[in-house]
């Protein structure tokens, strides 16, 4: 999260309010953000999720991938049941005898890793194309934006289905699919703000100084296009996590050896008819919590970073 905040420091500098003494733009941003209690709660939620994912192997009660410690004898224990190894399964165990808490922590790591990883790649690709479209204009702009428009006219899930149905399963393939689905959003967002920035005097000044094109584009134009980009990036990570979970549930995403939250839910689905609800319910709640908190943060960022909405 800190990295994101640092970025806004650069981007939010041009906002409208007069700067009080001793107040940095970053401070002001934090104060604005904290005006909404829900948003603060969301940020705390995101921080908790990230910490759990980061320190997963150390806080997880058992290692769900360690085949030596997972025994089939423990399968489908009720929440609170004690496993053969003496560890209490707080949220029960799944059909293979894995502790649900541990499986969810590891699943969260995979879900977040895939979501954030694909988000970063898509961001790099999308931003490069979007900036080029805005800077060069003309034919380059027309071609890039036509491709973006056409892609965005299809729902994300359909594009992902086309790719995964033809390419097959695997973590690399799902990342490719998620990147291809997302890049167009970044390209469109950054082009929109870059078109405005391109006509500003500082770009003209930078060009007159004889700076190279890449330096003008990435060093001068990009930092000023950041605020809307941060909002879209936040929302897109949530979207990517959701899409990955959905695809994994359909059996098109990750292989069973690396169960993400979506795959855990899918695995629990077959046991639910016999009343063993916990295998599906708890990973779903974890997924829901992750996505809702990210969306709450993104929603607030949009309000705070949008200069038009500033008082």
């Amino acid at each position, binding site marked *: 999260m800190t990295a994101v905040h640092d970025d806004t420091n650069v981007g939010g500098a041009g906002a409208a309010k007069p700067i009080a003494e001793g107040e940095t733009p970053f401070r002001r941003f934090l104060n604005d953000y904290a005006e909404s209690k829900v948003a603060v709660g969301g940020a705390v939620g995101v921080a908790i999720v990230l910490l759990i994912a980061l320190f997963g192997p150390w806080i997880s009660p058992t290692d769900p991938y360690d085949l030596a410690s997972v025994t089939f004898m423990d399968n489908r224990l009720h929440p609170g049941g004690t496993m053969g190894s003496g560890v209490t399964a707080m949220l029960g165990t799944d059909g293979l005898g894995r502790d649900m808490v541990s499986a969810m922590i590891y699943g969260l790591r995979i879900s977040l890793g895939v979501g954030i990883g694909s988000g970063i790649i898509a961001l790099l690709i999308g931003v490069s194309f979007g900036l080029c479209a805005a800077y060069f204009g003309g034919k380059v702009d*027309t071609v890039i934006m*036509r491709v973006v428009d*056409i892609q965005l*006219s*299809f*729902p994300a*899930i*359909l594009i992902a*289905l*086309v*790719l995964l*149905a*033809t*390419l*097959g399963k695997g973590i690399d393939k799902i990342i490719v699919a998620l990147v291809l689905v997302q890049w167009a959003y970044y390209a469109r967002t950054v082009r929109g703000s870059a078109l405005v920035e391109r006509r500003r005097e500082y770009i003209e000044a930078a060009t007159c100084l004889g700076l190279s094109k890449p330096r003008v584009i990435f060093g001068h134009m990009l930092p000023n296009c950041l605020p809307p980009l941060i909002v879209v990036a936040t929302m897109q990570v*949530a979207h990517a996590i*959701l899409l990955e*979970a*959905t695809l994994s*549930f*359909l*059996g*098109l995403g990750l292989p069973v050896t690396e169960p993400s939250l*979506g795959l855990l*839910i*899918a695995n629990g*689905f077959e046991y*639910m*008819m016999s*009343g063993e*609800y916990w295998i*599906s*319910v708890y990973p*779903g709640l974890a*997924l*829901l919590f992750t*996505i*809702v908190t990210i*969306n*709450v943060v993104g*929603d607030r960022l949009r309000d705070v970073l949008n200069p038009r909405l500033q008082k």
Partner: protein
Amino acid sequence: MTVFVIRRLLQAALVMIIMSLLVFGGVFLVGDPVEMLVADDADQAERQAIIKSMGLDLPFYMQYLRFIGNALQGDMGNSFVFQEPAMELILERMPATFELAIAALLIAVVIGIPLGIYAGLKADSWMSKTIMTASILGFSVPTFWVGIMMILFFAVILGWLPSTGRGDTVELFGIPVSFLTLDGLQHLILPAVNLALFKLSMVIRLARAGTREVVHQDYIKFARAKGLSTGRIIGVHLFKNIMIPVVTVLGLEFGGLIAFSVVTETVFAWPGMGKLLIDSIGFLDRPVIVAYLLFVVGLFVFINLVVDVLYSVLDPRVRLQEVKS
């Protein structure tokens, strides 16, 4: 106008060609169809015979042209599993998917618009805040998980509604439909609500945003000054004006419902096209996978084309801008 339509048609054709290349390239070249079709104990001569009969010894562009030529005649090959033409299988399942999508659309509109108008008129009441919070939640919840939870509550715990299948169907103009029988309707409720949730959140937001904009317009003030009843102002003057964006977005989103029904159909074992796709991927039934993907992509290109052309008819600014650029 003609220039615009021709441009759009060309673009649609281009998209179809690119998509078919992608699907064809993915299914026929990344995977090895020979491995799929030849028995494990086949000798070299048998292998060669099959490769020859399928045209797999031809260069790539020849294979692709052959595939397109057949596809244009509606021949996408036979399903490995069902031994029936793939296209027929898809068309057989289509009514079920459309029924589900239309039911979901109706639910989204009938529930979403009143809630959205209310939230727009009384923006500060706690009810409105609840509605808006719920709609944010509607964007965030994983559809498949909500579906599973609905099955857990209404089918497993309460036992009120069935959780799988389509129930009894009756023929309506030769098409089997569920909603005309009690049993079919019971089967339809859960999947339709599940599929509707996302669109419901969207309709609420659109209706609320529209309402907040429209209530400040002069014609609403004038209607009020004329002494019209609040019911009439909301039901006629406001309603008509907020429907423009709602109808536009829903038209575009109908295709999205079809695509997204893959998820709902899988959860509720609804026998539509989406379920067929997921099953076919499970069986590696390539002709059906290709047929489904091209069919749905084609459907999309068609919907987008129709929307674009309709727009240009209704709003000349769109068309002029396009031709200029």
